[in-house]
């Protein structure tokens, strides 16, 4: 038998038909939807009178437009956004699709809600009209984002006409230093391979440093693979991943459990499997990473100075002109340090970093400290379940006492589709995934970083090396 990568194994088990040498008809175990990339797909379906044949393989969450004010009964004030939410409910009701609606106590960000209730399982194909669906590789599931036309295709057929990707392997050995997280690691990787370094490939993350990561840290890593252009990200499921799923997927009965585990244990790349590209990284070289520009690959370790250009600049633009455009937007100067740069806003949230471990990390740093004067700091938990857990653990109170706003779950200021929008020129220390121009508000400047680094910035009011905050105990998980 020919040796196969994990990616190829997942494709094989989900291929309904080979359409041509480049495309297959791929079955999706789970299709996730949100309120803003699905309405036109449902309209297309409804106009043609097409049913959803497998509604129980689909789930929807109100996540992007929802306000996150700390009120119990949430009301979407913007009429257009309110219509998106009510339209989603109407469509889900019509087709029998499960929905986490606006005031569902378990509502949250789609990529936080679905794994925390055991819906994501090793060996699955998970598709969603959202680019950060790569997150699910953390559990050995092939996840990827699609557009609305394809959402319609999946709704109508539970399959997708899928263009095959290549195999890329990223080995990470060594040990993450104290004060460094999966967020720093992925920013370092993206910086080195570039914003299109994995374009056309599914990445498999391997190595001892990956095995050492918690499942939540793996979510963070796989989540941002798309910022390097990846079609997907995978980590072969190990005992930790299988335990994570079995603890949550309690509908898997005892006798089915053996069968499932037997299958999950086959989900790895064979020894002789061929990867077209392999990269190696040493986790020991990771330091806290922060972006300085307008693309996630414009990141440096906090110990470095802002560069005048970067090696991913493309020939049709002058070597430094894209970097110059970035620096002009972010108001920074090449050759200087990011340390000490004043910030006006801190945002802890998003499908990248709004899970319980992220909030614990923030709480540990801000305990008995206070958000700096003139800084507005927000925590938007990833889901209702995360919020409840943080309250039960006392984390919420620590954050509130430190001067953070403790808000309701949603995508919030990661993409600023709701009313959590930054003003022109405001600079934000953000645990999110994209520092694009205008992403968090027109003219607003985003510095991507880990929750620990964002917490340190909140306390000091400037970009700070969290390792030098004089923390009595180490917070490294």
């Amino acid at each position, binding site marked *: 038998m020919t040796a196969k990568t994990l990616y190829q194994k997942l494709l094989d088990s989900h291929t309904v038909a080979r359409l041509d040498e480049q495309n297959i008809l791929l079955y999706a175990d789970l299709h996730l939807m949100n309120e803003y990339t699905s309405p*036109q797909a449902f*309209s297309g379906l409804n106009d043609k009178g097409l049913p959803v044949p497998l509604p129980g393989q689909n789930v929807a969450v109100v996540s992007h437009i929802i306000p996150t004010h700390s009120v119990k009964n949430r009301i979407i004030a913007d009429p257009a956004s309110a219509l*998106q939410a009510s339209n989603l409910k109407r469509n889900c009701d019509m087709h029998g699709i499960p929905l986490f609606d606006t005031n569902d106590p*378990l509502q949250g960000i789609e990529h936080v809600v679905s794994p925390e209730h055991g819906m994501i399982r090793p060996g699955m194909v998970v598709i969603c009209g959202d680019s950060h669906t790569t997150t699910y590789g953390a559990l050995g599931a092939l996840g990827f984002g699609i557009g609305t036309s394809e959402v*319609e295709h999946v709704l109508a057929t539970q399959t997708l006409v899928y263009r095959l990707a290549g195999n890329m392997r990223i080995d990470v050995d060594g040990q993450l230093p104290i004060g460094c997280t999966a967020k720093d690691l992925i920013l370092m990787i993206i910086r080195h391979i570039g914003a299109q370094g994995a*374009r056309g490939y599914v990445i498999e993350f391997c190595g001892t440093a990956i095995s050492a990561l918690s499942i939540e840290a793996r979510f963070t890593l796989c989540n941002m693979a798309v910022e390097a252009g990846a079609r997907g990200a995978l980590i072969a499921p190990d005992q930790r991943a299988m335990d994570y799923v079995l603890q949550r997927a309690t509908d898997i009965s005892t006798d*089915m459990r053996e069968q499932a585990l037997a299958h999950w244990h086959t989900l790895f790349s064979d020894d002789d499997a061929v990867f077209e590209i392999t990269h190696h990284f040493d986790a020991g070289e990771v330091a806290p990473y922060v972006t300085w520009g307008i693309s996630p690959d414009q990141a440096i370790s906090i110990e470095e100075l802002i560069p005048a250009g970067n090696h991913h600049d493309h020939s*049709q633009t002058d070597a430094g002109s*894209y970097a110059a455009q970035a620096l002009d937007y972010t108001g920074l100067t090449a050759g200087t340090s990011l340390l000490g740069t004043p910030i006006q806003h801190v945002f802890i949230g998003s499908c990248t970093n709004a899970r319980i471990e992220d909030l614990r990390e923030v709480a540990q740093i801000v305990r008995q400290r206070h958000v700096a004067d003139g800084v507005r700091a927000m925590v938007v938990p990833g889901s209702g379940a995360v919020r409840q857990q943080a309250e039960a653990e006392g984390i919420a109170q620590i954050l509130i006492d430190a001067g953070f706003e403790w808000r309701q779950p949603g995508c919030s200021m990661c*993409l600023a589709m709701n009313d959590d929008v930054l003003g022109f020129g405001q600079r934000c220390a953000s645990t999110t995934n994209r520092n694009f121009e205008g992403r968090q508000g027109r003219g607003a400047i985003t510095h991507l970083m880990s929750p620990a680094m964002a917490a340190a910035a909140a306390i000091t009011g400037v970009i700070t090396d969290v390792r030098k905050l004089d923390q009595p105990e180490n917070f490294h998980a």
Partner: protein
Amino acid sequence: MPEHHVISGVAAPIPQPNLDTDQIMPKQFLRGIDKKGLDQGLLYDMRFDQQGQRIDHFVLNRSEYANANILVGGANFGCGSSREHAVWGLSQFGIQAVIASSFAEIFYSNAMNNRLLLVVLSENEVKNILADVKHPQTAHVAIDLVSMTVQSHTVRASFKLHERHRRMFLEKLDLVEATLTRKPQIDDFVAQYHQRYPWQADVAGKTIARLRG
């Protein structure tokens, strides 16, 4: 020969690499439940200032490029968010094709599904075409889907398009319709698949039933 086999007209240069879909279609234009009015939002922050006034020097606001139907872009065009609104907006604005050295993957599929033609050329070819089209008098470009060539003032370049995408473009191949002809095959697949992996069947339905008690 289908009438769509040649796209020709004024091409506008937007050479920035990593032109993400947040910039192509900003957040405030994503709140609809239909596809209407997205031409208004296209590249909004580049076309209009904070007060909503036109930024005269931006290429698409210059009279010489007012009728542009082709864009020549930088590498990794369309990266970021999966929002198909970016493609709908380009089409509604009158853009029929984009030329670049690379396109982000989700954007590529979205474009093909809407018959927005994406032409991938080498970095050098794109650089030379950009040099042509930045002068209005040499900004005419023709893309021929039969000979599979791009012709600008000084560049003649060949490009490739997968046969499936070529058919989607020329024959308006509807993928949902095409896949539905395989419905019996899909049904068979699903039945066998769920027999083999029963814990994946009705995964969302069972989860929600469990959570709702």
